[in-house]
């Protein structure tokens, strides 16, 4: 008798536990929506760990948003949709993208939700940018391209979205083979798409520097060093952000080395290293460049110093393929401000 009943008891307990977790997730989410609406963002962040997991959250957020969004004046419904979507992307980001399938599902569902809004707003622009930053952080090329398309339908010619579409196209071309075939040999059809996408982005002043930087490095990967250097020259005139300036010095240095201009390469590497002294790639590139010119003593000092002093700073090179990941804090700040 006991043997017969045990599976039933286990099933009922599991069901109860599942239902319990589901109820808890829904309660937590309602609280998070309310807190976000009041501008209590630290409370929202603190509640994230109370959710069971992203898969459960996906089910709970769909159900709970259907209840919570209409419980306001009709004029505020659009804002509430954006709040639900904002809670979704911030929660996904705080979970670290470990369960990417679930995370991606939540962002895509949120995208559908915000696109129901009657008119595009500043807050919605920030939301799409946040979603794109997450897709880029996950290096999910297809998701970036699809979502850039959604965002551009709502905000035609928005520079960051035009650039994001190009980054998505470029993401398809990674990784490179060490001492192997170039992008052109591996995937010739992608080459023109990437070049064209970055050229379109470079037409927008707001992202001209970054678009030229990325296009230049793409040319470098193709082995077209003179074209790369031309683009780097254009990028230099538009770039102010240290993160991008660092990458420019690094890439320009590599391209100059390729043409045999070793001392010019050293100058470029030195510029990158000065912009972000605790990022290691530029320090080692500079050290190697000096060593190749017989300046062993300085090379040794720079290389050794870069290995010491604890954890190095975040290195833009290590995040290069992840596009707007670096901008996440400012994007989220902009989204919160726009939803106040």
């Amino acid at each position, binding site marked *: 008798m006991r043997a017969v009943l045990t599976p039933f008891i286990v099933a009922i307990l599991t069901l109860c536990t599942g239902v319990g977790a589901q109820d808890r997730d829904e309660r937590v989410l309602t609280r998070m929506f309310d807190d976000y609406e009041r501008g209590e963002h630290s409370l929202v962040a603190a509640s994230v760990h109370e959710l069971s997991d992203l898969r459960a959250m996906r089910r709970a957020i769909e159900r709970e948003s259907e209840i919570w969004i209409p419980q306001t004046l009709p004029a505020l419904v659009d804002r509430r949709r954006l709040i639900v979507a904002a809670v979704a992307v911030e929660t996904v980001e705080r979970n670290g993208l470990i369960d990417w399938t679930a995370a991606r599902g939540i962002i895509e569902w949120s995208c559908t939700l915000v696109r129901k809004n009657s008119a595009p707003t500043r807050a919605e622009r920030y939301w799409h940018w946040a979603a794109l930053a997450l897709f880029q952080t996950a290096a999910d090329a297809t998701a970036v391209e699809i979502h850039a398309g959604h965002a551009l339908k709502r905000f035609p010619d928005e520079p960051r979205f035009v650039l994001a579409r190009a980054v998505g196209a470029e993401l398809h071309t*990674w*990784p490179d083979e060490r001492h192997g075939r170039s992008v052109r040999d591996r995937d010739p059809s992608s080459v023109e798409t990437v070049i064209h996408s970055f050229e379109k982005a470079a037409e927008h002043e707001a992202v001209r520097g970054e678009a030229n930087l990325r296009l230049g490095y793409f040319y470098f990967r193709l082995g077209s060093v003179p074209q790369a250097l031309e683009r780097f020259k254009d990028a230099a005139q538009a770039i102010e952000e240290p993160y991008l300036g660092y990458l420019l010095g690094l890439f320009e240095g590599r391209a100059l080395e390729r043409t045999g201009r070793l001392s010019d390469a050293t100058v470029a590497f030195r510029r990158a290293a000065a912009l972000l002294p605790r990022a290691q790639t530029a320090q*080692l590139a500079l050290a*190697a460049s000096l060593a190749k010119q*017989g300046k*062993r003593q300085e090379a040794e000092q720079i290389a050794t110093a870069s290995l010491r002093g604890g954890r190095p700073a975040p290195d833009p090179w290590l995040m*290069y393929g992840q596009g707007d990941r670096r901008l996440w804090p400012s994007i989220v700040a902009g989204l919160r401000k726009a939803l106040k």
Partner: protein
Amino acid sequence: VTRPLRVAAAVLTLGLLSASPQGQTFRAVIQGVSVNVSVVKGKEPIAGLTDKDFELRDNGVRQQIAAVSLQSVPIDMTVVLDTSESVEGEPFERLKEDVKRISANLGPADRFRFLTFGSTVAEVSPMQPRGDGVRNLAVSTGGSTAFYHAILAAMLPGATPGRPHLVVVLSDGMDNVSLLNAGDLIDIARRSDCVLYVLLRQLPGPTLRRARPGSWFPFAGNGGHRSLIEAVETTGGRFERHLVSTPLPDVLARAITSFRESYVLWYTPTGVDAPGWHELSVRVPSGKYTIRARRGYYSAEPGGRGATALQGELPRGRD
């Protein structure tokens, strides 16, 4: 003369102290180059060779060897350990065992430097007496694999005079983030005075890594390590690849012994005044031996003078 010996096959100014018949001490100076040469038959190092047994060419020109010594001297060793995500689990445990075995072959006079690398390279302990360096193996794994950056950082420091520098790299060799590549290592290897020993530990089956969500790798594959092997051979070092499951105590001990007990050939460059890269070749015509030696050295001025000169004494050892 501002720096000690910077390249194993560096240009040297040797101060030789000798006693005259009258009991006076005088100083003889020889401008020269030294080349470390390991001569092995099978697994055994070959002893008892003299200057007449070696044939050394500098840029194709046969040189008169001034002196030969078989040295057994204290060494400096830099161990570079891969701690990236790709070696997590059994490979990392094996690599740590390898580090312990290597350090067990160091003597009390030897020194040890310990570097680790994942996405970035870190110096766990600077060059110091062996006992202090190897205790600190409490390192964790994670991150991508900056394999070439780590080798470069290990090769750049110059050797201390009289102390040959061996760089031992333990990794799966699957670099996926270094902006610099094996071609850069060849350039650095030509100017470095270390001997590079790369030991790869790999799992059977496909070795390509794909980025997981939340991470991005610019590179995949290794191109068969051809350029890396060239960099290793430029220094007169070794490249070996083994499965993770293979125990390697003999291999590691032999590598260190053959490094420690190598011949040093001294000569004054003759008929090779061109600055730049000097190609070296060393042979022992009298037998079928495996010979490891640097492939060359850089000279900044005619005859090699000026760039890396130092004053020193001929090493003492078994002649």
